[in-house]
């Protein structure tokens, strides 16, 4: 699959995980990497260019840290502007139909926070539901999100594991070595699930 990574992080100077993940993704061949905050620091998104990019790829990866249970502001702006009626949805808006969407997120809260009985009272995929429904309305297949919990309080090993698993995930998806059927059965997945989901 031709992969487009849309990376949204407003405070990259403070990022511990996402910037390292992005650096890995950037160097991959056959993966188009876009740092949205770098390209549109004044939030004036070039809609035509973004739509063209979408059409040139099969899998759209949204990589971002979860802020207040949602995407960073610029990624929301991107959705508002780029996913136009007549392009992404509506009777004639079938340009994205058949593509795949994958959210790769990090959260500050722990896995136990994101639970029915945890502090956030919902699992993480429920907070990502707007994105899921957006993709669905556009006729895309929304894959279960690739999640890293407690991103600010990780020990070094777990952090490195996640950072290194990200390019492996992307290459597997690119080379069609990723078990889509298997992943569809999961609510979400993390770096520890990757070994089972990769085929050779």
């Amino acid at each position, binding site marked *: 699959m031709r992969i487009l990574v849309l990376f949204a992080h*407003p*405070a*990259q*100077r*403070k990022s511990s995980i996402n910037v390292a993940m992005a650096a890995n993704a950037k160097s991959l061949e056959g993966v188009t990497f876009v740092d949205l*905050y*770098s*390209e549109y*620091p*004044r939030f004036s998104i070039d809609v035509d260019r973004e739509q063209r990019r979408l059409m040139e790829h099969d899998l759209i990866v949204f990589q971002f840290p*979860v*802020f*207040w*249970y949602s995407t960073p502001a610029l990624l929301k702006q991107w959705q508002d502007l780029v996913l136009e009626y007549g392009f992404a949805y509506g009777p004639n808006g079938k340009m994205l139909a058949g593509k795949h969407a994958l959210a790769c997120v990090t*959260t*500050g*809260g*722990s896995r136990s*926070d994101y639970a029915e009985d*945890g*502090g*956030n009272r919902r699992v993480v995929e429920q*907070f990502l539901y707007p994105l899921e429904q957006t993709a669905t309305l556009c006729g895309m297949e929304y894959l279960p999100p690739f999640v890293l919990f*407690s991103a*600010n*309080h990780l020990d070094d090993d777990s952090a490195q594991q996640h950072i290194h698993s990200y390019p492996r995930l992307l290459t597997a998806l690119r080379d069609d070595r990723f078990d889509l059927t298997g992943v569809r059965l999961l609510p979400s997945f993390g770096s520890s699930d990757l070994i089972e989901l990769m085929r050779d």
Partner: protein
Amino acid sequence: MEGLAFYALYYLAAAVLAVIVSQRIGLGSVVGYIAAGVLIGPVFQISVAGSGYLEQFSEFGIVMMLFLIGLEIDPDMVWRLRDKLIGLGGLQVVATIAAVAAAGVGLGLSWQQSLLFGFVAALSSTAIVLQTLEEKGLLRSDGGQASFAVLLFQDLAVIPMLACIPLIAGSGHASSSGHGGAALLADLPGWASAILTLAAVGVVVAAAHFLSRPVFRTIALLGLREVFTAAALLVVVGITVLMSAVGLSPALGAFLGGVVLANSEFKHELQNDIEPFKGLLLGLFFMTIGAKIDPETLLANWITVVAATLGLIAVKALVLFPLAWFFRVRGPAGWLFAFGLAQAGEFGFVLLTIAGDRGLLSPSIVSVSVLVITFSMVLTPLLFALSNRIVVMLERRGRHHRDADQPEKGTIILAGVGRFGQIVNRMLLANGHKPVVLDYRADVVDNVRKFGVKSFFGDAGRPDLLESAGLAHAALLIVAIDDKDRATEIVAYARRSNPGIQIIVRAYDRLHHYKLVDAGADHIIREVFDGSVQAAGIALESLGMHPYEVEKRKTVFIDQDTAGLARMATLVDGDVPAANNPEFIAGFNDIGKVIENAMMGYRSGYDEMVARGWNAPDAASIHVPRSAGPDRPS
């Protein structure tokens, strides 16, 4: 020493007094200097030797002025003005010479004398006109540019005129008294002196081109400021001596020297060094003209003098006005041009002196002619005022006929469509607003008219023009002119005349910003601030900072700087200079502390302001057990 101090005392005192009075009445500094000359005329006559000495000395003023004009000559501008320079200037000179020479022959003068008077009449006063145009801020207007082109041509035309005098006078008539260094040529036949004259010009050009640079560079390397000043003066004095030796106008040589040095890297140093000398010596020159007004000659010939002066002005204006029309310098620019150049000039004195020396004119004719030139020069400010009056009158009358040009209520007035106003205008037009545009360049105004914008030609600083643009009923005034004092005046006037209007104004710098606050501006835009911040931002980006981080840092910088500026503006007292205002100084130390500190290396405050938001919580879990919800981002 005592004698020198005596002259200096009279000169400076009379100059200061008369110029202040003359400026206050609105006649300009030139008339002030001439009046001062009349006042101290008796003092000059105490010692005839002293008078001649002073006169020679003061002619350096003109030499220096032409040197500076030469330095300012920009090849691009000359090229742009080539039609006017050669066409308008050439026709003006030829037509005036023809008209005056014909009149002279008609009045019974010899053809040589008539031709000489034609020469004298064809020249206008570069010194007075340029100074007046500059003072009135009209030098870059259409009329001003046309005037400049014609003056430039006239200054150049002096070379052949000077070369012609020996030819028309004939060497046999040369008076033995001689004029200083011109004696060198006095015994030569006409054609030989003409060749020698051209050779001297060649020497000046060649020396300025090949010799000046290595010399200036050597002096600049010494790092001695006063030696450089001395060298700059040496250039002017050297040219003067050489030119005088061959009987040519030193002013012209200086002008050529200036042109040759115009693209040298020492141009600005030369300008700064010569400028103050020029101002004072030019003042002295005008004073010597004033001192030349001899009451006895005047009383004996007053009818001739008055008639000749008015005749001269009439002939010149009658030649200038149709020519201006023909060269598309019309309307207000045409009036300014025709009346502004209607006087005779300082080169006339030079021509008359040489003609007197060559025996072409009798001493009494020379002194009467000097009076005529002087009076026509003295009348120049009145002529400028007259052209202004005519323009205002015509505008008023014109408005009754053109109802369509009546401004409507709620209009936007844009004063100035130069580099700054042009962008404002384009953006307003692109968004469906059509401002009333004021500018003093007709081509700009015409350009803007193409887009259906109501545009008025003229100086936006003139209250009547602002009023006719609809100031009383306008909702918004944008002042985008580059003259800061004028901008402040416009703001103050507009605020008084229409208290409810919104005023947006372009500020030159911080101090101008404070003045504009005082004048009553609502929004003040520092003209280069935003562009500079953009450049700094791109610099940070080029150094590897993330574009969004750059964006935030720019925003905080602008906010801090603007807030500091706004705080300072309340402390500024319009009447007390900023440097003498203790509150201001204290405040200045306080403003932009964040930025100042960051500049000193204590960046924590700045970083903190930039970095607010998106901070990770310190605790691994932010959830207080049993609490209703989170208080930090997930």
